[in-house]
């Protein structure tokens, strides 16, 4: 079994090399086919690893350099179900995006396939890496491929600007991560996650550990688009081609959160476990801030991809809250939420791609009513939007229900209403856009929404059935996450194992396998009444606010005037903060890191 571990990375890298080498020699379609086969192979082996890892955590040491006397001298790939699951999501979405691009970007420049393969393969490598420097290398490889993909359509200055903002913000984050890694190495002399954690265990956190924690967490949160580190994300999404956006929102941001989870539970938990509540307080605050901010910003957009990008930011905030609660249920909830969100959001972006191909526009107001010609796309768009609100037993609901349960067990039950509101508001924004485009509801002018640069379609003659098939498949998979029998329990088990540092150390350093866990029952777990009520609440907020967004002019002036004066100035400030200038973004990153580090320094050393 261990032989399969490197394959989700090796296959796409080889396929990418073949695509590039065969450029100008192979016929166009053969090159594309190599790409798709490579992506499919990576996905297939990711699934094999995922299934195998549910029994035991799988481990392979490259070159046979196994640990000697509890010192890891080699580099390992470690597949636990959480990591293998993220690898499967990454390679699966990469495959779907490449199938979509087959028709959507038929005449794209040649490196496109290679870049997509590198992107997917590097994400899988990150999810499976058991070595912190190896994680950094995959992180950077994934980053470089993503920057190039974001700036792919160089016809306007807008895409280039978005790609530069993206590249610079994330590179600053990468250097923060590298500095954190260097500090950990200085303290422990190790780069293997299990060994770093093992060396730190039992020591009270000192200045160095706190600085390393801050740099690593904030560096990964830049990738995860958590406010105030999120500013690059909307720019990158606004300019990237739709299938690339599907990967950005579906899984790239998830990689950032996986980085935080992995580092905390294999490394920092060893030292910080007694003060976990202080770590939690800071991260929960960041998550809630992000969830609300992202939802509000989503509501102010008319450029569809930017709107969806802000909704992604909001969902990342929700997931960060769940991860930050630091319990098994909530971490499982975050994983379920991100799985459903990734599939649904990817399908929504692919719907946007279809609109772009058909109408050569991606602007909610310019598309007003035009979508009536595409009822099927409208149906998919609407279903995707409403499934993100947490309607009971649909889409992201499973994640929300697990988070509710975890938060209640932790005694922090004030977070659920906030998360419900955030999910409702960002869903409302998508529903409003969908109703305006596909039903022609509401006016075709709305001064509330930010104007955006136009975008032109890459391919006007794309094959519609192919695009619809890929989009529909992702949508259906996303919708059924909440009712897939046994999935919730399995994800919780995976989360529990990702949190078990002692078992991880035993597996990696001592080659000691735990007995296989009992197989969870194959059944849909009933959820609590509270969760159902929160789900219904989120849905009502989504539908109500979407209608209010469309028809707010019909509200009596008595209601509108105070609302306008109360909400206008803060919204203006928010808009100004999202300035589109990369220097400002890096300034926010610096301030955010300083605040997070300062708070932790105060709380954790006390």
């Amino acid at each position: 079994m261990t032989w399969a571990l490197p394959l989700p990375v090796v296959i796409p890298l080889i396929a990418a090399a073949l695509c590039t080498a065969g450029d100008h020699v192979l016929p166009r379609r053969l090159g594309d086919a190599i790409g798709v086969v490579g992506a499919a192979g990576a996905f297939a082996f990711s699934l094999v690893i995922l299934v195998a890892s549910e029994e035991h955590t799988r481990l392979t040491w490259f070159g046979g350099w196994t640990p000697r006397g509890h010192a890891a001298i080699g580099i390992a790939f470690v597949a636990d179900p959480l990591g293998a699951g993220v690898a499967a999501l990454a390679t699966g979405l990469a495959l779907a995006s490449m199938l979509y691009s087959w028709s959507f970007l038929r005449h794209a420049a040649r490196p496109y396939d290679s870049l997509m393969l590198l992107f997917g393969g590097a994400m899988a490598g990150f999810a499976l890496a058991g070595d912190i420097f190896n994680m950094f290398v995959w992180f950077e490889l994934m980053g470089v491929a993503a920057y190039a993909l974001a700036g792919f359509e160089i016809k306007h200055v807008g895409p280039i600007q978005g790609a530069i903002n993206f590249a610079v913000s994330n590179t600053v984050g990468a250097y923060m991560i590298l500095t954190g890694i260097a500090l950990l190495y200085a303290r422990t002399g190790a780069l293997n996650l299990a060994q770093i954690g093992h060396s730190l265990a039992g020591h009270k956190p000192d200045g160095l550990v706190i600085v390393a924690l801050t740099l690593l967490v904030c560096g990964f949160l830049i990738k995860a688009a958590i406010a105030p580190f999120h500013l690059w994300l909307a720019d990158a999404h606004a300019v990237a081609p739709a299938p690339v956006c599907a990967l950005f929102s579906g899984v790239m941001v998830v990689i950032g959160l996986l980085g935080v989870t992995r580092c905390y539970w294999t490394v920092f938990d060893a030292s910080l476990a007694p003060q976990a509540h202080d770590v939690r307080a800071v991260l929960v605050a960041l998550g809630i801030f992000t969830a609300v901010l992202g939802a509000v910003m989503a509501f102010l957009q008319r450029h569809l991809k930017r709107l969806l990008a802000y909704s992604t930011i909001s969902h990342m905030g929700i997931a960060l809250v769940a991860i930050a609660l630091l319990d098994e249920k909530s971490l499982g909830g975050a994983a379920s939420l991100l799985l459903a969100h990734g599939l649904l959001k990817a399908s929504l972006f692919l719907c946007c791609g279809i609109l772009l191909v058909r109408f050569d526009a991606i602007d909610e107001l310019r598309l007003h009513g035009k979508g009536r010609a595409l009822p099927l796309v409208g149906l998919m768009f609407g279903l995707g939007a409403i499934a993100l609100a947490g309607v009971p037993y649909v889409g992201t609901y499973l994640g929300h229900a697990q988070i509710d349960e975890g938060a209640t067990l932790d005694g922090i039950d004030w977070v659920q209403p906030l998360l419900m509101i955030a999910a409702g508001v960002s869903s409302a924004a998508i529903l409003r856009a969908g109703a305006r485009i596909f039903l022609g509801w509401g006016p075709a002018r709305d001064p509330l929404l930010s104007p955006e640069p136009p975008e032109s379609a890459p391919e006007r003659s794309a094959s519609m059935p192919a695009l619809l098939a890929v989009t529909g498949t992702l949508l259906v998979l996303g919708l059924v996450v909440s009712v897939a029998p046994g999935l919730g329990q399995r994800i919780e088990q995976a989360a529990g194992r990702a949190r078990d540092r002692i078992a991880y150390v035993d597996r990696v350093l001592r080659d000691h396998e735990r007995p296989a866990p009992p197989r969870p029952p194959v059944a849909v777990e009933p959820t609590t009444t509270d969760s159902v009520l929160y789900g219904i609440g989120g849905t009502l907020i989504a539908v109500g606010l979407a209608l209010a967004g469309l028809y707010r002019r019909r509200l009596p002036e008595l209601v509108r005037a105070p609302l306008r004066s109360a909400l206008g100035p803060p919204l203006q400030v928010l808009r100004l903060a999202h300035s589109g200038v990369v220097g400002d973004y890096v300034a926010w990153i610096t301030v955010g890191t300083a605040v997070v580090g300062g708070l932790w320094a105060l709380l954790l050393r006390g």
Partner: protein
Amino acid sequence: MSFLPYAVAAWVCLVGLYGIVTSRNLIHLALCLTVMQSSTYLLLLAIGYVKGGGPPIFKGVKLGTTSVDPVVQALTLTDIVVSVTVIALILALALDVHKQAGTVDPDEVREMSG
């Protein structure tokens, strides 16, 4: 072990950050990014330094000879390789901005905000 290399690394990092935040020229911005990156080299090499240690080349050297830590040098090399790609990409994008907009000032090519 002297604190000087660590202080210099922190200073170089902050200088680079300041440059990125205030930059009005994309080429300058890319170079500031490399300045910030240099701080990671300094930090890594300072961590691996051993007083009196020779280079970590063990061919023809007596067993047990002190040497500096080879791991951080490998990390530094990897870091250089990875970052060169990023910088090359950013410079290429800056070139494209200049072709399209005739300027490399990030404040002047602002098409997206809010």
